[in-house]
């Protein structure tokens, strides 16, 4: 299944409180995603909380968009990505 990076922009900043509500919110995202066979792997949030970069595994970009719709999340851009790590190539030259 491909991996996608999804960029989102929140004009008022993304606010997920570290409370039960916040936990509920995250779990409900996971549940809605499952309907489209989409898995939320991890997100990176900008310091001002206005931009997020979210890593997802999913079958197609359309599934990503439908899952976002179920969760009322905006989608600015979707890019297919692979992991690249500074230490991947260590040992390759020897």
């Amino acid at each position, binding site marked *: 299944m491909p991996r996608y990076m999804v960029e989102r922009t929140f004009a008022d900043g993304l606010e997920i409180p570290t409370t039960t509500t916040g936990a509920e919110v995250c779990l409900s995202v996971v*549940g809605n995603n499952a309907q489209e066979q989409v898995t939320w792997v991890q997100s990176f949030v900008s310091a001002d909380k206005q931009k997020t970069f979210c890593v997802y595994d999913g079958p197609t970009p359309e599934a990503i968009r439908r899952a976002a719709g179920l969760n009322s*999340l905006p989608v*600015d851009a979707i890019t297919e990505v692979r992991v690249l790590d500074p230490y991947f190539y260590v040992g390759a030259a020897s």
Partner: protein
Amino acid sequence: MLVLERDEVLAELRRYLDEAAGGAGSLALVAGEAGIGKTTLVRTFAAAVGDGALVLAGSCDPLTTPRPMSPLLDMAADPDSHLGDVVADDAAPYELFVALLDRLRATVRPTLLVVEDIHWADEVSLDFVRFAGRRIADTNALMVCTYRDDEVGPEHPLQPVLGDLASSRDWVHRLHLEPLTPAAVAELAAGTEVDPAELFAATGGNPFFVTEILAGDEEIPASVADAVLARVNRLDEAARRIVEVTSIAPRSLAAEYATSLAGADLAAAERAVNAGVVVGAGPDLRFRHELARGAVEASILEARRIALHRRMIALLEEDDTPDLARLAHHAARTGDDALVQLHAPLAAEEAAVRGAHHQAVEFLATALEHTDGLSGDEIAELQLRYAWELYIVNRPGESVDLTAEAVAHYRSGSDEEALGRALTMHSRALWNVDPQQAHEAEREAIAVLSRQPPGESLAYALYFSAHLHMLSRRHEPAVADATRCIEVSREIESWSNYRIGLMTLGTAEVVTGDADRGIALIREAIALADEAGDYRLRVVALGMLGTGGGEIRRYDAAIAWLEEVIAMAERYDEDYTVGYSTAWLARIAFEQGRWDDAARLAAQVVRGGALINDITALGALGRVRVRRGDPGGAEVLAEARALAQNQELQHRWPTSAGLAEHAWLRGDEEGIRSAIGADFAKALDTDSPWARGEMGLWMWRAGVIDGPPGGAAEPFALQMAGQWKAAAAAWRAVGCPYDEAMALADSADGDALLAALEILQRLGASPAADRVRSKMRRLGMDNVPPRPRRRVRGAPAILTARQREVLELVAEGLTNAEIASRLYISPKTAGHHVSAVLRKLGVRSRTEAAAAALKMGIGNGPE
């Protein structure tokens, strides 16, 4: 009969039958290897059901080529079924299926519908299994189908039916019969001298093999065949001959035939029955199992076996209504060309009439393998019939060589009508392989046939030629041939050719001429078809209207026609037609800017079906991704392009346009030219305004041409002429918002660019929107709107499914009590949900929540 270790399966079937009695019908597919006891299971179950259900049973036979609708004919033969009149009616297969299904809905008792050995089923019976399997859930019937799963490989015709039924339907149950356990084998062997462990080792627990061995003497033979033959060899000679002749018949043999063929008397038959080698079934003799029959037949000396098949044919021929498929089967087994010639073509004709075209193909193939003694003319006629049937089952390419031979034969003779027909068949075979040659063959056919007084062959040849020209989007030749087809057909009063000529003329007008006139002509053809009861033409003609209308961008009408085609085709399980029409709906949704719909519809088209279905669906999906800037657009378009390699321009140009757009949005001008490739030149070679327009636009964007090519469709032509305002208005009139925005974006006018940006942002067309923003900055505009950002109050409104339901009802204006009763929860729980929703949305009142719901696209607002 002792039936071991089948209690669970029998209980499961009982459950399904009880559910069916309650109105929830289902299909049980029972699979297992040969000899595992599928028939025994079914018979045991039917006996246990007794009068509790109406039992309709039929089975498929191991004929070389099966008889069409054999199991259905079995069922109809049972007077309790009351199906006799429906079947005898010579109705088209789907009418028969519908009538049968209506009976299943109408009965008071539940129905147990049994179809055995569907791995041997003919095409029409397979269609029935699929038809009934899809619709059985709302009847009170349990349908049980058995088959040998070890004989159904990936290419087997049953495979797609199984795949289709089992995948998405929860009323389809798959059961698998397992071999007996050592304990069960031991139980069966109790009281004999046979060692249970050895018995299990030799048989693997296969029930038939076990019982055969136990019925013989104590020695355990190496194979099932040996076990069977050992028993046969213990019979006296006359009884043995009875058994041998019975093995020649594929299913069962009337006892009087058996005695006649064997030169023995009924007493000998009785001895064979008493020894348990064959069983009596009414007036017929039968083997207990196909394995036994096959073993005995194979053991007969070949010369004798062939002689028996011959004599069987002689006996069967005396029947009033001979079973043609069976006669063909025996004829094929004799290897005698004259006999095959006598029977196979007739069986082919019956199969064709019954709609079993795959079987017709097989019978004719058999006939063509035994052509000794036939004249050149007779061989050529067989070849042409075979080619005709191959075309119907969508394998025209296989008849290229055969039709070429027929043409060569008739060329050396003086029968010009036959030569003309052969050339037309050859043209049909060539169409997907070499369109140029196909055209030439058809031209020659018409020339040859025109030298004769006009007849059906000329009318059909003219239709086919017009059809080829229409597919190539060549207006004048298409109209000329179609018009002449209509005239000739009227003259000779061939109304079916008249209708298809009319339809083809109309289609040509729609795609390359006067669309309104074309639509009227196709409608006329449909009206005539309805009068004549020609349902086929209605579906094809509506398809022409839908896809032709879509190509010239008359969206509202096209959508209506395509939806009508889908409704009709779904009723008759015409999956290919449903797929193509759905793919077209995807394309139209794409062009109209409804990109979610386009992606959803494209995904519905089953991959690996017809080529043009995949090409059209992948084209729509790829173009959506390109316009959104989503990954996977170019890949999908490249796949569509590869599939469309040998197809007509109208299947290639949307993909080329998509790839060109992809290159352009990345600033890759060289890429635009290589994406279009030869398709612009091809477009100029056709008379299609929309092909000239779309291909021309990209050549214009790439700087290859300065202005619109002649005959380009209006919105495109205006764009290429630099009249962006008129072009945008034209695109708006057609209903293509993205193209409207791109026309506005061609300008250097601030307001136009802002309007373009607004449209593109609304559509989610990020790459194009970014281009417009760049252009605005380059032009020195200082009010360039940034990328849109979602304004979300408080936390992103991430609701659970239940909370979304509640919000929808709040938005409709319901009170907590009303919500509670709607959702079958307590008012207190409803109240909790409403509070949670308000909190998550960050609003303080139900009204504000309703407004938020509207913005989120939840619910339709107050009723």
